């Protein structure tokens, strides 16, 4: 397991890639949100990550990983606008706290940073898996990562498993009844639509999987 799976340069590549994916998928994410929410998730995430690019990534030279991740969180809580702001903001703040002062993370440290972020989302949203939220992508991703690492997979394979689990998890939100957020006001009518937050969470894990290893 030894060896570095995420360093400063790869961290920046991850965040750039995630910003790119969110910009590319802003339309589809907003359409998903139009069905069961307030039709702004894609626009909001794109706006937040544009701010991340300008205010954090463009000035990240010489900063350690934890600092950059915390700055991403601070930027998102003030720029996204919708529920994604405090939820993704908390994700990156907690991940950054877990990586505090570090410039390189090994497999275990990156796993722990992800777990801290996921726990932050769970606490902030007072949600559990199965309620049609971001957690329905993030929790399966973390479980798949843990299972793969425990089985001795290499990092690349373990993160690929995590990305697939997140994508499957986001698709599995289609038949779920929303119990959190604006979608919960729809009750039974929320069934049959994929959750936008779980969908963007799968992009987060996918983009991270692309840079680790």
């Amino acid at each position, binding site marked *: 397991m030894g060896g570095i799976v995420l360093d400063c340069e790869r961290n920046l590549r991850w965040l750039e890639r995630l910003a790119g994916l969110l910009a590319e998928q802003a339309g589809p994410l907003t359409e998903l949100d139009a069905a069961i929410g*307030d039709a*702004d998730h894609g626009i*909001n995430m794109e*706006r937040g990550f544009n*701010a991340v690019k300008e205010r954090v990534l463009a000035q990240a030279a010489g900063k350690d990983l934890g600092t950059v991740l915390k700055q991403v969180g*601070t930027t998102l*809580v*003030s*720029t*996204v*606008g*919708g*529920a*994604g*702001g*405090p*939820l993704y*903001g*908390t994700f990156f703040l907690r991940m950054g706290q877990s990586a505090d002062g570090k410039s390189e993370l090994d497999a275990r440290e990156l796993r722990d940073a992800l777990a801290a972020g996921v726990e932050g989302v769970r606490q*902030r*949203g007072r949600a559990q898996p199965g309620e049609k939220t971001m957690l329905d992508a993030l929790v399966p991703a973390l479980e798949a990562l843990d299972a793969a690492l425990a089985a001795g997979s290499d990092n690349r394979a373990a993160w690929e498993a995590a990305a697939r689990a997140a994508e499957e998890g986001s698709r599995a939100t289609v038949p779920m009844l929303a119990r*959190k*957020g*604006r979608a919960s006001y729809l009750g039974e009518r929320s069934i049959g639509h994929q959750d936008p937050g779980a969908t963007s969470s799968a992009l987060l894990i996918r983009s991270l999987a692309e840079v680790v290893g």
Partner: protein
Amino acid sequence: MTVSLVVVSHSRRLAEGLAELVEQVVQGRVRVAFSGGAEDGRLGTSAADIRRALDEVDGPDGVLVLMDLGSAVMSAEVALEELPEERRRRTRLVDAPVVEGAVAAAVEASLGSELDAVARVAEQARSQPKLGG
């Protein structure tokens, strides 16, 4: 000194209008700040802007924060967590209907009540019937 209020909404106009409504009731006896809308003026909430509102009315007797829907609550929680420990202890997020709760809390605060009592009155606004008992 008295307890201050911060009202948070996804809509800047809603937050501003509510602050206006409250101010009319308490006539300057209670400090009221509002935070509403995303950074670029669209609907939404911002933890940084909530922090600005908290800074505006902070005082030794504390601040009661009333919020509208989901992300307003979560953004307020983020803002609260970022406060220094001493201020966090005198800043309270309250689970209350935002309009009725804000008016009731402002009146209670104007009477010089402590933060716990002001928060309790805001919570009780939920069970106050509008169309008779």
